[in-house]
């Protein structure tokens, strides 16, 4: 395997990855897509591997997606959620890490509300760590599935104009998308209320649009982020109605676009707030393709971190033993 595509022990974020590493993950996801189309959706790639899904934050979509990916690769999985576990009883993250390590597991998928939590865990255990979202920092598999979906539909990432719309300040999805897309040669912009923009965001190599109309005129792809309802309670935006009026992705706005726009949303959606139903359910929405691709991308990441080679992914699907 060429050294430059080796992911190392962990997938903590896309910021430290090279374009070659990202491309290797996306390419490896391709052959894994087919497994989910089979009648018997299981291959022995990770047979005998133990994976813990450690979710300190509630998550339905990401956790289920990882669990399907793990099960379809024949790994043994355990789900731990913060409620009802020793975490809720005050155990520290470092103690949780040490206990997991003592149980001789192979991989941990972690979701945590604190930025840096995945890296913290990765630095302290020998098992592979996959970041399923840490605070506002990164959510690398989400950005990978977004990129795979864009590539599926537009045939490329290079030169594609992607605008991320909404609460960039609090969004790990936005950060991972910015790193991933810019490395892959896409042009990236952000758009949303100024109160929800991180300081110095343009220094990450992205453009900033104050108004959604400008973004729509510019972009090939809109990645529409969920507006967390607590942002309104905290006063970042005066009301959901006003948010929809000035930043909502509506059909009327898209009709004025110079070209058809691909519409992505990481979910779960607030219909009628950041995205209108006729857009979410419309012909240019690829939101459900994202969900399908999520499983393939996560299978690819699990396979690669377990030591698999990108070029052997196709063959590995029918191989009798884990790589």
């Amino acid at each position: 395997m060429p050294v430059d595509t080796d992911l190392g022990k962990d997938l903590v974020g896309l910021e430290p990855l090279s374009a070659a590493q990202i491309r290797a993950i996306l390419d490896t996801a391709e052959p894994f897509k087919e497994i989910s189309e089979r009648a018997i959706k299981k291959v022995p790639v990770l047979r005998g591997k133990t994976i813990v899904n450690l979710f300190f934050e509630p998550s339905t979509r990401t956790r289920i997606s990882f669990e399907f990916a793990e099960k379809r690769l024949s790994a043994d999985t355990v789900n731990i959620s913060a409620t009802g576990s020793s975490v809720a009883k005050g155990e520290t993250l470092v103690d949780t890490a040490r206990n997991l390590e003592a149980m001789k597991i192979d991989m941990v998928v972690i979701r945590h509300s604190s930025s840096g939590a995945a890296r913290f865990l990765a630095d302290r255990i020998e098992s592979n760590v996959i970041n399923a979202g840490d605070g506002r920092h990164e959510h690398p598999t989400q950005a990978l599935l977004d990129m795979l979906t864009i590539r599926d539909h537009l045939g490329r990432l290079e030169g594609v104009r992607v605008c991320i719309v909404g609460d960039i300040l609090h969004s790990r999805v936005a950060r991972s998308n910015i790193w991933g897309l810019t490395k892959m040669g896409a042009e990236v912009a952000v758009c949303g209320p100024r109160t929800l923009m991180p300081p110095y965001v343009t220094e990450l190599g992205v453009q900033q649009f104050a108004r959604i109309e400008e973004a729509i005129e510019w972009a090939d792809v809109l990645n529409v982020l969920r507006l967390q309802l607590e942002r309104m309670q905290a006063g970042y935006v005066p009301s959901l109605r006003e948010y929809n009026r000035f930043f909502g992705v509506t059909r009327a706005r898209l009709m004025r676009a110079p070209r058809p726009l691909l519409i992505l949303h990481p979910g779960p959606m607030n219909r009628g707030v950041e995205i209108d139903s006729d857009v979410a359910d419309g012909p240019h929405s690829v939101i459900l393709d994202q969900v399908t691709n999520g499983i393939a991308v996560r299978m690819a990441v699990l396979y690669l971190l377990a030591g698999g080679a990108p070029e052997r992914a196709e063959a590995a699907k029918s191989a009798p033993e884990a790589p």
Partner: protein
Amino acid sequence: MTPRSLLLRGGRVVDPSQGIDDVLDVLLADGAVARLGRDIEAPEHAEIRDVSGLVVCPGLIDLHVHLREPGGERKETIESGARAAAAGGFTAVCAMPNTDPPVDDPAAVGFVVAEGMRAGYARVYPVAAVSVGLRGERLAAIGEMVDAGAVAISDDGRPVSDAGLMRLALEYTQTFGIPVASHCEELSLSRGGSMNEGLVSTRLGLQGIPNAAEDVMIARDLLLAELTGGRLHIQHVSTRRGVEMIRAAKARGVQVTAEATPHHLTLTDEAVDGYRTEAKVNPPLRTAEDVAAVREGLADGTLDVLATDHAPHHYDEKEQAFDDAPFGMVGLETALGIALTELVGKGVLTLNQLIDRMSCGPARAFRLPGGTLAVGSPADVTVIDLNAEWVVDPDRFLSKSRNTPFAGWKLVGQAALTIVGGRVVWDREVGPR
């Protein structure tokens, strides 16, 4: 104490308070400086120390330390902190009142004084609370606390958010001649933040604390000091605008002193990269532009004092996700070495300026004894080896805590002897007394 004398022979005496920088002998007797001069004849029974090649200066004074006792004894005690201070070359420290319970009444002040005396290393001066329970609601018994030994008041760790209360504090303290030391932070701008607001916080996905959170409070306090004529001391200045505003206020005669910490003089928010909790501190590490301005402020005297904001934390509190870890770093045992290496060694300050900011300036700001080797002043002396090369190893700290971002730094210069009241309380060759 047995009346005993100590003759420091042949050192380079640097005393900015008297404009002295010369090779002289220093005779300490009965707890005071008895004589400075060439070839002083040793009195009978005097202990003689050859300090040739070393710098002899008025004892270093740290206006800003957290000794954690009572309530936080697993992090630090008054004794362990005073011992660490002595090892760092400090002959006196000012202990902040945000303990548990806080130092907000005369009995608590008396406790700190007594424990400091009992420890017998660096002198420990209590700083008492501005407000009852540090709650920022009404003034604590400031007069009684001054009688019990408090040298200043501060709600440090948190700001005095109510401008009206700050005004009262700046007025009421004038009877007692003590300063109000202010931790400048506008909480509505800093709440939820864990590092400097900037490109690094955006990259790391951490909520930032903007410079403005500090600056608006510095501006407010300077205006209130001007209004009242009270004595204001601004703690741990970290921003460019903060330095500028203090400089302007001094120029128009506002009674203000201010301090800078070793970390704000040497580190930027880049030190946080990798979620390094040992670099998590409040106010946060800022940008290179701010560091340059703080350095300039310390050099030109806008900032009178170099103080550590020594903030010990137990290792398991720092071994957490960044947002969950507490703010603060230890500084007593690294401050002098950092300052000599990074400031004097790199031409930011002269040695005379550094000794002024670490000894004379602090004594002036809080009107403490010491800060001078004038005959008759307390025999508090620091002897510095400017050439000693050493590496910061937290495992060797005398502090009970190890939380420093300077681990592994190669430094040049350290305290060889720390002398308090004529007694050697730290000797590099043998450790604490």
